[in-house]
């Protein structure tokens, strides 16, 4: 007597392949002895104390209930103040901001609120693993644009133009980028804006989780800053990466009220509201933690330069990343695939990094190295990387 599950699972869910790197992480977790991990996509800093304290105080004061669906108005106002201060863009906290459970919920809400079956969504790869999946869960069709190292992994206007069809509903862009560390400047975005002006029906989902981790000038640069397209740009943002608040599970959507309203509808039925404790922490983060961001960004920047130097010393080609906390070197010269490289580096040198193909097919031949790790670990890992690459070249 056995139940046949095969046809019971939604086809949309079945067609999304399990993550290519699950096996790799299982291997890393099973390894005995000390493993240096430069594989993790979250800050190694603990959330700044004042932010944690704000969360604790909300518990002490008994704020343990549901908040309004969109979030406490004080939290939304704090986010609007932050966006005005850092982006120079005004959002109405009453109707244009929705507090979500991390940036990830935002990606899902946009997909479910916008997609009709068969609608196309342009996904710019290499990218965060959830972009394609959220589109497919919502019965959309991802259309991949592959960015290139020779363009510093920026989205080129002609590449976007070529991917757009009359079925395109929206495009997903994520800069500063996970996994490449690429950034787009305002000048780069201006060219994308011009493409969008030629296609007035297309909506933009701009994932800006790493917006504060920009080492060019430390300032966010975004499509939201162009008033001509403001009525169709949805910003998905949050506190996880910039403020080291991953475990708080809190993010937000900012966009025109007409697009935010349907997302609030889905959010209120599925989620109800983001955790109230996290929303109180957000007020402190958005209002009073700019100094903390500067401190973390400065330290990431130091480590970034150490990684770039380490890759150079190891003889691996890498474009210079100016954002997030990743480097994305090319390992083609070793003759190994991304997965072989990472698996052997882990088994032989006990350092975990992530194969680039996990972030899209065009990531094959590359690996993602995170510098959200201590300087000691980074230095040791770069020494081992050099040894490893030399061993490979000796055969």
């Amino acid at each position, binding site marked *: 007597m056995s139940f046949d599950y095969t046809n019971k699972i939604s086809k949309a869910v079945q067609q999304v392949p399990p993550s290519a790197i699950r096996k790799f992480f299982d291997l890393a977790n099973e390894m005995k002895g000390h493993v240096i991990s430069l594989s993790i996509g979250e800050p190694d800093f603990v959330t700044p104390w004042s932010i944690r304290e704000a969360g604790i105080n909300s518990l002490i004061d008994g704020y343990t209930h549901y908040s309004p669906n969109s979030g406490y108005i004080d939290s939304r106002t704090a986010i609007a103040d932050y966006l005005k201060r850092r982006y120079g863009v005004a959002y109405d906290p009453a109707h244009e901001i929705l507090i979500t459970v991390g940036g990830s919920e935002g990606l899902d809400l946009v997909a479910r609120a916008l997609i009709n079956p068969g609608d196309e969504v342009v996904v710019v790869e290499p990218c965060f693993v959830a972009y394609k999946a959220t589109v497919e869960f919502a019965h959309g069709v991802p259309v991949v644009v592959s960015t290139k190292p020779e363009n510093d992994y920026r989205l080129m206007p002609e590449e976007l133009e070529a991917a757009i069809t009359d079925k395109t509903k929206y495009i997903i862009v994520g800069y500063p980028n996970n996994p490449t560390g690429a950034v787009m400047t305002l000048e780069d975005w201006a060219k994308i804006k011009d493409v969008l002006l030629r296609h007035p029906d297309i909506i933009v989902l701009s994932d800006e989780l790493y917006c504060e981790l920009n080492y060019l000038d430390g300032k966010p640069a975004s499509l939201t800053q162009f008033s001509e397209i403001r009525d169709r740009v949805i910003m998905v943002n949050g506190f996880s990466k910039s403020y080291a608040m991953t475990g708080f599970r809190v993010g937000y959507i900012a966009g025109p009220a007409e697009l935010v309203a349907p997302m609030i509808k889905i959010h209120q039925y599925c989620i109800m509201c983001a955790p109230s404790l996290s929303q109180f922490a957000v007020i402190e983060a958005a209002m009073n933690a700019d100094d903390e961001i500067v401190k973390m960004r400065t330290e990431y920047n*130091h480590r970034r330069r*150490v990684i770039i130097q380490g890759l150079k010393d190891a003889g691996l080609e890498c474009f210079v990343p100016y954002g997030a906390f990743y480097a994305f070197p090319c390992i083609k010269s070793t003759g190994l695939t991304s997965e072989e490289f990472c698996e052997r580096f882990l088994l032989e040198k006990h350092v975990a990094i992530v194969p680039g193909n996990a972030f899209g097919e065009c990531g094959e031949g590359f690996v993602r190295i995170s510098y959200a790790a201590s300087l000691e670990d980074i230095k040791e890992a770069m020494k081992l990387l050099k040894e490893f690459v030399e061993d490979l070249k000796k055969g």
Partner: protein
Amino acid sequence: MIDDIELLRLIENNARLSSAEIATMLGSSEDEVNSEIDRLKDDNIILGYNTVINWEKKAPDNCIGMIEVRIAPVKNKGYDHIAQILSKYDKVTACYLVSGGFDLMIIYEDSTLRNIANFVTEKIATLDGVLSTTTHFILKKYKANGLIYDSPDTDDRQAIIL
């Protein structure tokens, strides 16, 4: 061009970085780092390099006294005269002029309580111009030099896919 504040913050937190490492981290050259450090030393901005040691683990009997000193300021020299005398003692590890109910805060470290008491009664109290002293003994250090003592240094991040 090196941002000297950034350089100072970097070596304030980790004095063991080599010039080559500092140069990499600041996107500069080793020569530039060396000459900037020399300049900061010449200007008495970099005074020295310390190691932060948790002596409570290695020499638990060591004693630290925080001594409040009230002073009658000396004509033309203010508080500096006595502060400079007290600062000359090696075991005085810090000396501050402070606002409030007393004038100097002295941090004094020695191997026994008796030695600290002797220092207060024989060296400080007997100085001309010292009006009174109050001595506090440190019972436990929780944080010093910006470092929290006995804080667990663990990475509890899970290997998750993102």
